[in-house]
Each structure stands twice: as C-alpha cells, then as structure tokens.
C-alpha cells in the first residue's frame, strides 16, 4: 500500500507495530477482563517515546509531526483501544495545551516530565452539567492572595489516578459564559484534590476514567495556564488535537477488526468451504476495507494539514465524525462475520465493538462534530 511516508515515518510506524504485536497483543484480552491500568505498557511507551511524540526535543519529546503520531496511535489501536486512549489523553489533551500556552517555567516543570513519560497527564473539562456546553462549567477558581482556590468536580476524565499532572478548567468569571473560563495546572496529591469513583464503562476497560473532586484546592497563582478567562479557546485547540488522535484510533481499531475478520473468514468452514468464498461475507470485507481506506486517506491528509501549520478545525471534525462512525460500522460487520463467536468474549472482535462506541462520543460527539462542520460550511 503506497502511503508516501518518509523513511522516518515508516520506521516509527514499524517501532509501534512491533511493540503492539509483541507486547500489547499477547495480553490485551486478559487485561481487558481485569480492567487494570496497564502500567507495564505505559512504561514501555515512555521508553519508546510514545508519550512525547509531537513535543519538541527541547522539552523532552521526540519532536515528530502529527502524521507520525497518527501512524503510531493507529498501530497501537489495532491491538488495544485503551492504550491508544491513554496516549491521546496524555499527549493531545494534557500535554499539548502546556506546549501551546505554558510559560517557560511551566513547560520545564510539567511538560518535560510528561514528554519523557515520567509523569502521565490528564485533562479535565467535562462536568455533570458541562461537556459539549463548556459554558455550563460550575467548577470555580477564585484568587485568594497568591493562590487560586478551586471548588467543584469533573466527570468522565481519562487517566485519573494514574496521572500526576492535570489540566482542568474552572470558571473565573461566573457572568461571562465561555469567556469566563480559565485553565489550571493541578498536581496529584494537592490537599483537597481528590480522585473520585471510576466509571464502570462498556469498553476501553484499561483506561481509568471517572471523577475529579476539588474541595478548596489551593494552588499557586502561577499555575494558571494561558491567559485569564481564555481557557475556552485553549481547550478547543486541544480538542482538535484530540479529534485527530481519536480518528487515528478509529482507523487502527477498524483495521484490527478487518485483519481478524479476514483471517477468520479464511479458516471458518461452512457448507464445505471457507466463509470468505461466500459473496455475502466477501462483500462485507470489501465494504470494511473501503471505509477504512477512505478514513485513513482523510486522516493522513488532516495530519499533514496540521503538520503544515494550517487551520484544520473543520477538516478534523469531518474526519472524527466519519472515522468514528466508520469504526462502529466496521466493528459491527466484524462481529457479524464471526457469527456466534463474534458475540463471545473468547474472540476479540466484541472488545473492539464495545471500545469503538466511545469514539463517536468522546472529544465531541458526532452531533457536536456536525455542529462544527455545518458552522464552517455555513460561515
């Protein structure tokens, strides 16, 4: 398959592929069942550089482009959506806002250990009454002398507990809606900053997702990230990064399902021949391959736009909407090809099916993506 990648991009993809095949695949099913946080994987990701792919070398990262990051996430997602999501939450959502808006001191203190993979990151925006509608944020931050005092809670936050550094949003001007939100850097262990209960999710069982609680959390004044009341545009920019990563996950997971379905359809014999010899099954495989290739083509294009420094907000919303819905459709067909075995936990496609559904929801639902797309189309 010609993909017009550079030698470095091919080799970085090879690194990710070897890691995914040799170290992720053999235990992915077992870990999905235990729901444990995959520390062994995360430590290897740190060693291999997967936790600082787009972060410049001067801040401890690899300094690779967005396409390289997409290729790596794609390879990992072929074996584990959970691990791909952990990397997304750490890098795209957690570390990138620090790179965009952090002061030099903040970058040295928080971004360098994050990019080296020494400290995981997490990003907290969603609240019970605020998600897509960020203006509904109820958490507050009030300046008291040289300290910000945070109160409130967050939900559906990925990497909680495992992360050492958190970027969270809070209202700093209650009267100003989206223009009254600011971003802050919180360290795990700060008094009053608690990790609440973990969600019992349908899938992506190895990514720790749940609540953060702030009870009079006092943090230094300098932990404001970016400008006061300008948290909203900052996390919109971070969400664009996240949508690219989610799309790479979608392409990788769908490819993982197609690969498994192809192998199974050649082995499974019914009515005296492998089921891939039946046109109904062969056409399912054709549909899956077609949809994946379309999404992958757009993924690489949007990643290249990002790498070229172009605004890609509209295109990444289109990509995320299409790729995530595509992944669910492909997983559905994958389970169908496996028949009864597809419904069994003994085979892996059901895990991908469960994991895939998050992709149409996280980092902006398909409906929110359509708001972004239509807004751009009508502008």
């Amino acid at each position, binding site marked *: 398959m010609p993909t017009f990648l550079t*030698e*470095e991009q091919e*080799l*970085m993809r090879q*690194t990710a592929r070897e890691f995914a095949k040799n170290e992720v695949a053999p235990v992915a099913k077992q870990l999905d069942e235990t729901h444990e946080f995959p520390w062994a994987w995360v430590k290897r990701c740190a060693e291999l550089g997967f936790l600082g792919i787009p972060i410049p070398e001067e801040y401890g990262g*690899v300094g*690779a482009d967005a396409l390289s990051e997409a290729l790596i996430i794609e390879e990992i997602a072929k074996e584990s959506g959970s691990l791909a999501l952990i990397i997304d939450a750490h890098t795209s959502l957690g570390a990138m806002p620090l790179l965009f808006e952090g002061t030099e001191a903040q970058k040295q203190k928080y971004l360098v250990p994050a990019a080296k993979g020494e400290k995981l990151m997490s990003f907290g925006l969603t609240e019970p009454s605020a998600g897509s509608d960020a203006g509904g944020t109820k958490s507050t931050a009030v300046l008291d002398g040289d300290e910000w005092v945070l109160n409130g809670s967050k939900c559906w936050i990925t990497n909680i507990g495992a992360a050492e550094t958190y970027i969270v949003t809070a209202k700093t001007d209650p009267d100003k809606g989206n223009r009254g939100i600011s971003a802050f850097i919180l360290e795990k262990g700060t008094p009053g900053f608690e990790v609440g209960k973990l969600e019992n999710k349908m899938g992506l069982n190895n990514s720790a997702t749940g609540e953060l609680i702030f009870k009079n959390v006092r943090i230094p004044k300098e932990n404001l990230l970016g400008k006061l009341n300008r948290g909203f545009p900052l996390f919109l920019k971070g969400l664009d990064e996240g949508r690219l990563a989610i799309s790479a996950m979608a392409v990788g997971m769908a490819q993982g399902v197609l690969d498994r379905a192809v192998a199974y359809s050649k082995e499974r014999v019914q009515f005296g021949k492998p089921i891939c010899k039946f046109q109904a099954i062969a056409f399912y495989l054709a549909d899956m391959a077609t949809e994946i290739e379309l999404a992958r083509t757009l993924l690489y294009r949007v990643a290249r736009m990002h790498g070229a420094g172009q605004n890609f907000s509209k295109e990444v919303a289109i990509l995320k909407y299409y790729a995530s819905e595509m992944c669910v459709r492909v997983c559905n067909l994958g389970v169908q090809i496996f028949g009864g075995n597809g419904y069994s936990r003994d085979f892996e496609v059901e895990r991908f099916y469960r994991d895939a559904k998050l992709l149409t929801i996280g980092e902006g639902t398909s409906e929110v993506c359509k708001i972004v797309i239509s807004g751009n189309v009508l502008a």
Partner: protein
Amino acid sequence: MANIVVCYKWVLDEQDIKVNPGNLALDTSRAKSKISDYDRNAIEEAVLLNEKDGHKVTGLTFGVAGAKQSLKDALSRGPAEAVWVNDPVAAEADAFVTANVLAGALKKVGNYDVIICGEGAADTYAQQVGPRLAAVLGIPAITFVNQMSIEGDKVVATRKLGDCTETVTASFPVVVTVLPEINKPRIPSLKQVLGASKKPVTEIKLADLGLNPDDLKRKTTVKSLKGYAMTRKNVIYKDGSTAEKVAKLVAELAKEGAL
C-alpha cells in the same frame, strides 16, 4: 576497544510474499523489505557488547539501490555508522559473490576486529556468507554462537552444536555467526529512529573495491523459484481403538513413503 562490524542483508519480508495457488509462482510486487531476522540478532549482539565494554559498531550491507532504505533502520538499532556497497549485482549475488564483496569492503574500510553475521539469511538461509567471508579474509570463523564476549583482543564464544556446546576462543580478527537465541533484539525507540539520520553513512561503489570479474560471477544457478503449497488431505481415523487408529495412520504414512 574493538572495531565490530555487523553484516546484514536487506531481504523481502516473507509475510508479504503471496504464492499463486495455481502455478506456485511468487508474487513479490507488494512485498516490503526488512533487515533479515537473524541479522537483527547480530546487530543487537554488537550493540550489547558495545554497551558492556565500549566498542565501535559499524553496520555493513551489500545491496541494490533499494537497500538505501535499510540504512536508517539499521542505524536506529544502535550502530554508530553504516557502510553500504551499492550495486545491482547484489540482486543476483550468491554467497560466493556476497562474501567476496563484503571482504573487499572490509579491506577498504580497514579496521575490523570482530565481524558478526546472522547464522543465515531470512530468504535463502544458506548459512554460507559468514564462513566464506572468513575464508576470503583468511581469518577464523566461529559459527552457531549462542553466547559471546570480548576479552582483550580475543572473542570467547559458545557454540551450540547438535548434542553439546563448546566454548572456543579466537584472536582478532574473527568472524562470528550468531543464532537467534543469543538475544532478543530491541525495538528501537522513536528518538533512536530520528537520531539515525544524523549518523554517518559511507556509500561504496563495487568498482572501487578492486575485485576481479571472476569474484563477481555467481557459483550457483537458480533454475526456478516456486512457493510451496501445503495441501491437507483431511483424513481422520475415527474407528477402532487408539492403538488401531495409530496403526492405520502409520501404515498409511508408510504407504505414501512419508516414513
């Protein structure tokens, strides 16, 4: 500090080669290339020796123009520099030609103390290049090595033979061919991948090696190249006791000449 040269071959990835079930012809049109598997063990061993005692590791390959792609791959795995003998002759080279070319390149490059090769290549697995290279250079070869160390100006290596192992010592310069069990090659990190492009590469033309035309004429001839098809007969011996079923199976295998 020893100068370690690791020889590697850039081969087609056998997983990408399709076999036409009809005429058993090989379709390599969509096959990617890779560093031959056992040569990855050779590279890893050289890098491990360097990490332990501090040696200089150089990668060496003889390949066609497409083997340029292999250089960053090899360098990302740890060698400090790479030497590439670039010539179309490589496509048709057998072990005789390859050993002559590698020996010529080593003489041109000069300093070499330990030359490490994989036991055999992933495509032909002829297991010839290492010993032939030693013969051309007139130096010892230690084959089937599953453990090795460098002590002063000597290599101490354990050879895994049919029913025993033997430990041998040879003074520099020496060729060592390693078995896959000698180590587990590391996956290069992203930083190693990107760092590879900063390492020096020397490209040598075949004409600069001063070899005789006869050195470049292969000694073997490929008459045809075909995939193999594994067809199953799907015979199941169901009836009778286990002993009877085994007896039937053995009788059938004997009849077919398999036993």
